[in-house]
């Protein structure tokens, strides 16, 4: 993260950095002070755009088109890093052929960004000595999210901006321990440290360590697939720990219907969330301030979490709840502390292998950290070495989002966060100071659209998509362009995810939160 300060050029796409990752934004502001050029591409003119050398407003869901346009400029002007491509990458020819066929005028038509701006973006990025890309959910929450990420990888490889200090393609993880939940095997296809459940050796290793004769080797279901499975009557019980899918998932009405169909819904949380209200059983866990353990941040840094106060009421440690249910279920667990659990994790997970609570005192360690002497790894893919050997170019053409605007639903709606709140608001809306900052949901709208609908700042509107409708007040702002509206998803009483589109990326299974078609009507 601190490396960003030393980049010459930082290209930010699909990240509202100053709001969602304020301490990453600090690094970007420092880089600007040192003379770095910042390029921002985002459908919404977020705060950091005001500090950018160039800000471009591309239409929601047109990222691949924009990136291909940039790469066309780079190839046409011969700005690519030929030595890096030859030494460290594969499949460049197919990619090059696709890019050659791209027309900048067409890209400009699709994205709404002028040819001149596309050229400046490309030249500034390609001519930098050390260029970093920063992206977030604005890139991934699309039906073509994986293609968006691959296109960013293409751009970095094309210019040799990867595996060197202050370069790379840097995803910002949205939630504090989302990295850790992935690292720990909270995914349907892998055990800890991304060891595949389908791999015989890993399967055998974990079965042995966990004292069972066999483990399932079939890849499990993702969240959207589980919801689908519930509807088909194939999934009958769900145990949700510390998540609030009724507010966080797309097409909320549909999520509620599915959860109501379950024979058994267990929700373990610290507040009675809208999801918990649907449960058969609610288990009070404890907050981060009442427990010991570890979190892994967006730069793979593992740090300690320490208990500051006793749990409220009769709430219990989440690890103890799992252990007690497991033992009563018939699979005995007998850990005496989070540290004992961590030791088992380190023994089964090569990338965490050299970590102990003792070594995590202070600034923590970045994985891979395979042995007790290993200092940890600040950046991956060092010196052009990729996990798979060589970096692979992907030829990717532009595909429009799953739902486009039409006569009935003429506005394009996109979602995100505001500075004072976090995700579904379970914690921040229970914080007096933060709730005071932004007490209710709102919809950002361009002045021209507001005028056409006869609306003033603060007026209430009814907003509907093909999936649901909500009411909210509007905020008139030029942060969004004409025809595009933006709404934060922190507010359960005006839950924008009743409207969002559950269509998801075929590989990553990430839903298209960032684009859906809506209609608006004044509430009199």
């Amino acid at each position, binding site marked *: 993260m601190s490396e960003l300060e030393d980049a010459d050029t930082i290209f930010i796409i699909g990240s509202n950095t100053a709001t969602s990752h304020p*301490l990453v934004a600090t690094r970007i502001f420092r880089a600007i002070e040192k003379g770095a050029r910042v390029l921002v591409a985002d459908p919404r003119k977020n705060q950091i755009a005001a500090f950018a050398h160039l800000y471009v407003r591309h239409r929601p869901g047109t990222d691949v088109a924009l990136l291909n346009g940039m790469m066309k400029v780079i190839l046409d002007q011969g700005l690519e890093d030929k030595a890096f491509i030859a030494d460290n990458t594969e499949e460049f020819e197919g990619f090059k052929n696709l890019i050659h066929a791209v027309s900048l005028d067409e890209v400009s038509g699709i994205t709404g960004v002028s040819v001149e701006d596309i050229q400046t973006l490309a030249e500034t990025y390609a001519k930098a000595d050390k260029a970093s890309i920063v992206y977030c959910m604005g890139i991934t929450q699309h039906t073509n999210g994986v293609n968006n990420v691959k296109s960013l990888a293409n751009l970095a490889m094309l210019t040799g901006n990867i595996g060197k200090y202050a370069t790379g393609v840097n995803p910002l993880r949205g939630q504090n321990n989302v990295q850790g939940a992935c690292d720990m095997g909270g995914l349907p296809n892998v055990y800890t440290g991304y060891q595949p459940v389908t791999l015989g050796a890993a399967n055998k290793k974990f079965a042995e360590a966990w004292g069972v004769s066999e483990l399932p080797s079939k890849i*499990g279901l993702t*969240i959207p697939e589980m919801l689908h499975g519930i509807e088909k009557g194939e999934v009958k019980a769900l145990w949700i720990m510390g998540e609030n899918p009724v507010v966080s998932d797309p097409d909320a009405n549909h999520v509620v219907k599915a959860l109501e169909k379950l024979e058994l819904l267990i929700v373990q949380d610290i507040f009675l969330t809208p999801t918990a209200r649907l449960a058969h059983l*609610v288990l009070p866990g404890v*907050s981060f301030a009442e427990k010991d*353990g570890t979190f892994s941040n967006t730069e793979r840094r593992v740090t300690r979490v320490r208990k500051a106060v006793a749990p409220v009421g009769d709430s219990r440690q989440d690890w103890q709840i799992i252990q007690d249910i*497991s033992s009563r279920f*018939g699979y005995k667990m007998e850990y005496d502390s989070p540290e004992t659990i961590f030791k088992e994790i380190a023994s089964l997970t090569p990338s965490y292998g050299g970590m102990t609570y003792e070594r995590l005192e202070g600034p923590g360690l970045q994985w891979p950290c395979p042995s007790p002497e290993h200092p940890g790894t600040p950046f991956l893919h060092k010196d052009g070495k990729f996990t798979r050997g060589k970096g692979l170019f992907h030829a990717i053409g532009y595909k429009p989002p799953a739902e486009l605007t039409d006569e009935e639903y003429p506005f394009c709606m996109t979602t995100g966060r505001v500075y004072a709140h976090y995700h579904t608001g379970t914690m921040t809306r229970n914080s007096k100071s933060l709730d005071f900052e932004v007490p209710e949901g709102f919809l950002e709208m361009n002045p021209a659209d507001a005028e056409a609908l006869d609306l003033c700042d603060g007026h209430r509107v009814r907003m509907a998509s093909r999936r649901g409708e909500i009411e909210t007040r509007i905020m008139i702002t030029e942060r969004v362009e004409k025809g595009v509206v933006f709404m934060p998803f922190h507010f359960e009483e005006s839950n924008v995810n009743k409207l969002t589109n559950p269509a998801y990326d075929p590989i990553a299974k990430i839903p298209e939160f960032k684009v859906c078609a809506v209609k608006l009507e004044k509430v009199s």
Partner: protein
Amino acid sequence: MDYRNTLTTCTYCGCGCNFFLESLDGRLTGTIPCKTSPVNEGKLCIKGWNVHQFVQSEKRLTKPLMRKNGELVEVSWDEALDFAASGLKAVKEGTGPDAVGFLASAKVTNEENYLMQKFARAGVGTNNIDHCARL
């Protein structure tokens, strides 16, 4: 008077800032950013500065709740844990392990996520475990 400072890691975004939670006689009173943390270097955002406020909110869940006659009512831990274990067992035995699903969480610790996937895989026998990484 028992005044303490406890060094820990923030629960909000993926930055993972470090700070000290201040407590007085078991009540959280404030947040002090950690100057030596390589992540936040003595700084915090508005969410971090106020992170102590939600922890001891009156709205926190303090007892297990079970649905009886359509209403969620308070029950003992014993009853709650037995209900969970026997309910999961009944579904596994009736329909099979893949009829059970788990949502792990970006909000809990590594140790807790590890334990949940261990129970899903070794206890119940399913890989149906996911979390909100995509959301």
